[in-house]
């Protein structure tokens, strides 16, 4: 548990470096920043979903002494997410809406004032006239008036994945299962909303932007491009960030506005702290999808073919820089999950509507696609009289199938699904849960059901493993700089970012082990584009694999330099030197010869002792790219009690087994899994962003948008199948997998308990009750 200060910290749950400041109230979040002459920003947001802007009058607000910016101020700046996909319709997102607004909550103006209270006062005095247009809220209803003129049918992209002979396969199938499934729009909702502080130094034409972002280097480059500044003159700092989950992996118009306004007010730091109402309205949403699913099986439950039509509501804008393709393409690429499948057709499309833009959210599309896929097995099992576990066993990719080329042509390198499933069934004691289910059935007691989901999580995507929308950049690598200072302690400038994942800790563990110093001797600096060379940031469960790999490679490079120098000083052969706990010894000798600190002192301060040909300093910078990805296998199983009178579910037990590869910090790994399952349960049972037909968000506060609390989330049992991946650290990403199971598990459990197919999420009491009621009426 505690961090003993020795080399070999990898694999142990050392004390997190972040925790001391966070538990004492000394975290450094963007909103905590206080700078001289700071002014505060409030955004005025559209109260309507779709309208032409016919008038803007700021005179009354300006008369009170505040500064007001509107669409006209920055009309020449537009965020345009790009993709090389042939069907992609490129559209632009303005900094402030001008001409027309496309969703309720879109920023139309900003007020800068002495404090946030006065900024909000100022917003009330800005008058915007709207001429309403018919809004589109549902992505599978034709628009009366398109969101963007460039896409008259609102379709921003469409792609069909095909493999094998789908029509012939269905024609010859013993059983064809068909279901139309709709998943509920919800969002990441980190506890810290978005935030930014921007300040412009006019003399040097330099911008500093503190931003609660997952992707500071991407933000730096995009801001520089949009503001026509040299990249080196833009510094983005992501200090402590209070959760991200994908929501903060997007560059938002508010971010750009803040920087543009700062340039217009030189030397005045501008702070914006998003409030929760703004967050619910205008931070990215996700998971508003419809899956029209057909699955063909043979008589013994072997999956033969899938024919799917997937529509994703991508909201009003194609998010920058990920595009409107992020959800539909992920759905099409990974729909078949960890199952063998030869005949596959999936048409996926991203459709614009007058709702908040959809963006990346932990698990991107797969909580929905896993639900859709698992629903096919649940229905087929019921039709064929097979056990839900048995039908999955017959179809899952096994180790001997690996590498398995999925019908979407992604290559699965895992195959450990059955092993995860077996362990999960052991942990939940499957036979006794089934026995209890039978006992209750016989006794007429509250029914219980068992839900099962298997999934593959594609993590740590290298340059060759693109599941994304062919953007003008590939996110395959990260950089790391490791410096042994003259005192022998180590400072790491890593390209990773952290929103709670504990990367300061993990990177320190990797570097400490990589060099041979103690964990306590390593400090890690992250989130500052002026300090670290490069990192794409936190998304796609990539950082442990890629940022971790970079840290490992760099630490090894620095160790090589260290030992070269030490070898010269000791007049020994490099090959005979070992470094452990900050001390360098010669193989075969009992006592170390020299400390890392003594060698480091020579490297910087005693150049007269430097051996011939050795440069001063002890530093290296390396990149790492895993080229492919590392699939992480997972299985979740739960036993759920249903109250027939209210439709309420009680989760009696929830088990998850994942193959995270080698666990570098077991507590952090389990924390990622538990946290992602909790978000998955939230999405499956409670969280729903609901728009009315006029495009107004009906769930605009946390009184209506129901995030689960400690009273709703059950005790979870987390197990591991640790199969080292083929990368230097043997790790697989672990940040997202947990979210993939709960939709399928909980809907499946209701199916198992009651024989009711839940086709629309969330699995709310009313949904279950209505289905039960309909079942009773039919009976």
């Amino acid at each position, binding site marked *: 548990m505690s961090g003993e200060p020795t080399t070999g910290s990898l694999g142990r749950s050392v004390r997190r470096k972040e925790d001391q400041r966070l538990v004492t109230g000394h975290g450094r979040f963007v909103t905590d920043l206080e700078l001289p002459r700071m002014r505060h920003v409030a955004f005025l947001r559209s109260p309507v979903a779709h309208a032409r802007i016919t008038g803007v009058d700021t005179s009354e607000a300006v008369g009170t002494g505040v500064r007001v910016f509107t669409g006209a101020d920055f009309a020449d700046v537009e965020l345009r997410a790009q993709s090389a996909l042939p069907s992609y319709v490129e559209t632009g997102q303005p900094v402030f809406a001008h001409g027309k607004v496309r969703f309720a909550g879109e920023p139309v103006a900003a007020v800068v004032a002495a404090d946030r209270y006065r900024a909000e006062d100022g917003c009330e005095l800005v008058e915007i006239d709207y001429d309403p247009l018919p809004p589109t809220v549902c992505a599978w209803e034709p628009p009366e008036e398109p969101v963007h003129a460039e896409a008259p049918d609102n379709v921003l992209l469409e792609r069909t994945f095909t493999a094998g002979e789908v029509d012939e396969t269905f024609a010859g199938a013993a059983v064809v299962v068909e279901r139309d499934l709709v998943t509920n729009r919800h969002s990441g909702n980190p506890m810290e909303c978005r935030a930014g502080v921007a300040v412009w130094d006019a003399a040097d034409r330099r911008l500093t932007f503190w931003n609660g972002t997952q992707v500071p280097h991407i933000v730096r480059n995009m801001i520089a491009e949009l503001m026509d500044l040299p990249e080196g003159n833009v510094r983005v700092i992501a200090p402590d960030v209070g959760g991200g989950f994908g929501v903060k992996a997007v560059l938002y118009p508010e971010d750009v506005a803040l920087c543009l306004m700062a340039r217009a007010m030189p030397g005045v730091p501008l702070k914006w702290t998003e409030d929760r109402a703004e967050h619910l309205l205008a931070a990215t949403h996700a998971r508003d999808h419809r899956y029209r699913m057909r699955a063909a099986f043979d008589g013994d439950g072997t999956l033969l073919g899938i024919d799917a039509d997937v529509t994703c509501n991508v909201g009003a804008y194609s998010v920058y820089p990920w595009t409107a393709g992020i959800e539909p393409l992920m759905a099409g690429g990974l729909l078949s999950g960890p199952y063998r499948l030869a005949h596959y057709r999936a048409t996926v499309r991203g459709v614009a509507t007058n709702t908040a833009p959809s963006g990346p959210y932990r698990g991107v599309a797969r909580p929905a696609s896993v639900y859709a896929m698992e629903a096919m097995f649940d229905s087929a099992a019921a039709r064929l009289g097979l056990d839900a576990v048995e039908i999955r066993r017959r179809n899952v990719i096994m180790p001997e199938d690996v590498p398995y080329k999925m019908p979407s042509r992604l290559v699965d390198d895992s195959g450990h699904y059955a092993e995860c499933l077996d362990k999960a069934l052991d942990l939940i004691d499957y036979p006794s849960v089934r026995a209890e289910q039978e006992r209750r059935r016989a006794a007429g007691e509250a029914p219980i059901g068992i839900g099962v989901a298997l999934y593959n999580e594609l993590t740590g995507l290298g340059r060759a493993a693109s599941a994304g929308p062919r953007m003008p950049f590939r996110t395959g690598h990260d950089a790391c700089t490791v410096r042994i200072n003259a005192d022998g302690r180590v400072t790491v400038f890593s390209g990773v970012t952290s929103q709670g994942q504990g990367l300061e800790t993990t990177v320190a563990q990797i570097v400490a082990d990589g060099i041979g110093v103690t964990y306590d001797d390593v400090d890690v600096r992250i989130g500052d584009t002026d300090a670290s060379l490069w990192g794409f940031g936190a998304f796609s469960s990539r950082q442990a694999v890629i940022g971790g790999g970079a840290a490992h490679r760099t630490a090894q490079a620095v160790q090589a330099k260290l030992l070269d120098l030490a070898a010269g000083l000791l007049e020994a052969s490099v090959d005979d030197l070992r470094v452990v706990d900050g001390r360098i010894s010669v193989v075969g000798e009992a006592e170390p010869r020299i400390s890392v600190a003594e060698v480091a002192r020579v490297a910087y301060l005693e150049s007269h002792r430097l051996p011939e040909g050795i440069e001063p300093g002890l530093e290296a910078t390396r990149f790492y790219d895993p080229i492919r990805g590392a699939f992480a296998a997972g299985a979740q199983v739960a036993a759920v009690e249903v109250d027939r009178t209210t439709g309420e579910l009680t989760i009696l037990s929830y088990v998850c087994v994942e193959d995270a590869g080698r666990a570098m910090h077991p507590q952090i790994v389990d924390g990622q899994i538990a946290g992602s399952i909790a978000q998955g349960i939230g999405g499956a049972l409670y969280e729903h962003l609901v728009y009315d037909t006029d495009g107004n968000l009906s769930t605009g*506060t946390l009184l209506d948008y129901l995030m689960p609390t400690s009273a709703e989330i059950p005790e979870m049992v987390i197990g591991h199948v640790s199969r080292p991946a083929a990368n230097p650290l043997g790790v697989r990403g672990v940040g997202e997998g947990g979210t993939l199971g709960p939709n399928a598990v909980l809907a499946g459990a209701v199916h198992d308990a009651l024989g009711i197919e839940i086709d629309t999420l969330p699995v709310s009491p009313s949904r279950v009750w209505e289905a039960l009621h309909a079942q009773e009426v039919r009976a």
Partner: protein
Amino acid sequence: MDVHLIVNGERAHVDVEPRRTLADALREDLGLTGTHLGCEHGVCGACTVLVDGAPARACLMFAVQADGAEVTTVEGLQDGDGALHPLQEAFVAHHGLQCGFCTPGMLMTAAHLLDTHPGADRETIRAEMAGNICRCTGYQGIVDAVEAAGNARDTPA
């Protein structure tokens, strides 16, 4: 308006508009940024502080209402020597935090819980902590931490 209060045992004074919340006064006027704002409408619990010993949402109190009151924030949990409060130590040991944004409110709620429910079991902890939302941990580490801190306290040294 002038507001005199005692914060973490020390006298404090702020001059604020009546509409300024206690949370904003603590954070912006007194520089105690450990108290976080997650929703500003009383649901998430991130801003929970102790007012005269009882937990309260600092976003739902105006600073002027705290005139004469004793307020304890997360910055006041450590003892005079700077040692961590047993709850802080337990949150670290049991991975009761990830991003740390909800943590100050969690700690203040838990501090009151341990005072009022000695020996609370996991079910009680889950029910009593339900006014504080965490988005990272899935609550497992938080419940572990509060349970462990409670057990440690109930066990005579």
